[in-house]
């Protein structure tokens, strides 16, 4: 975890320095704001990781001498298959078409999206495949 944290903190620090230099030199707001936001985007998760890295045991993937056996156990939950990403994608597609061709496309768009969200949640609860 420590390397991940340092990576993000380092990038964030660099963007911070750049933001300061840029803004003081150019007084140009748009770029200054965007670089500042870039800094935050690195520092926030970076400090979270750092906080954790000081409080947790090194994970097997952080241990150069780990054996494969140390990874035994539940890695995570991986859904086998699901129709809902497709459904949600189609919903988003219709929502975008609504931006172009008219508001009524929102009906299928939001409908599909709602179905996908409900379905995916239920699927997660059920813990099975479609």
């Amino acid at each position, binding site marked *: 975890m420590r390397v991940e944290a340092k990576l993000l903190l380092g990038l964030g620090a660099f963007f911070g320095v750049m933001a300061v230099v840029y803004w003081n030199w*150019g*007084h*140009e*707001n*748009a770029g200054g704001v965007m670089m500042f936001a870039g800094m935050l985007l690195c520092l926030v998760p970076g400090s979270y990781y750092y906080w954790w890295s000081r409080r947790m045991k090194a994970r097997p993937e952080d241990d150069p001498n780990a054996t494969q056996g140390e990874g035994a156990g539940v890695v995570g939950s991986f859904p086998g298959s699901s129709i809902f990403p497709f459904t949600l994608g189609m919903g988003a597609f219709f929502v975008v078409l609504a931006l172009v061709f008219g508001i009524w496309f929102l009906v299928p768009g939001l409908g599909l999206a709602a179905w996908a969200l409900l379905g995916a949640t239920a699927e997660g609860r059920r813990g099975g495949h479609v």
Partner: protein
Amino acid sequence: MRRFVALPLGALALSGCTVPAFGAHKGATTESSSVFHLWQGFSIGAVIIGGFVTVLFVYAILRFRRKGDNIPRQAQYHLPAEVIYTVVPILVVFGLFAATLVVENKEVANPKANVTVDVNAFQWGWKFTYPHTETVVIGQTTQDPTMVIPVNTNVHINLTSTDVIHGFYVRAFNFSRYALPGVLNQFTLEAVKTGNFSGQCTQLCGLYHSLMFFNVKVVSKSQYTAWLASTANPVAFAAAQKTTGQQTATQVPTKPASSHGDN
């Protein structure tokens, strides 16, 4: 160390004439020849570095092709080499940057000018207005208007756009600048050669972007004065149109371009 790199580059740049042109040209203004020399400097650097890398690359390809199933030495690091090819490029970059600054400062400087031309770009044509005179030249797509300027004189250009972004580009000046709506872009140039030079819009501006031509005619000072006088009389100069009250064609509030301030 930095000077060490910048010096030979600068020296090469200054002795430009004996150095190959690398596809570019000296152009017709004082600024364009500085740009040309910078171009040569960069090109020499590129040829040296590119040539060096290509030689290494081709050598490696020829020399190390597979001959059987040997496993080569699994070397992964060579600190001195890595340091060298980190440090040398940094020095080169400093040199290039220093040379860039010199030419850039020349180009963005606004020395005192004797002649001013307001250049206004619009879809799809150009309008050249000569302030404090009656002269205005306008041309649309197929009319290719001509901007006349005197030789050996600092000419100050005020560049604006009426609608979308256009690009004011004259190859003989080795220079281009956007004509932005709402922004007054200013630059100064000094032509050192007389002649007819072609210019063209380089920034996509819609349907007839391909046909947004204009010309720049650099003439002697006396010819320039004569031309101004002749065009002041609208009858004598058919292609030009007389200003009728309005000073520029901009419909939008225009403020001077600067990197300081809100955009």
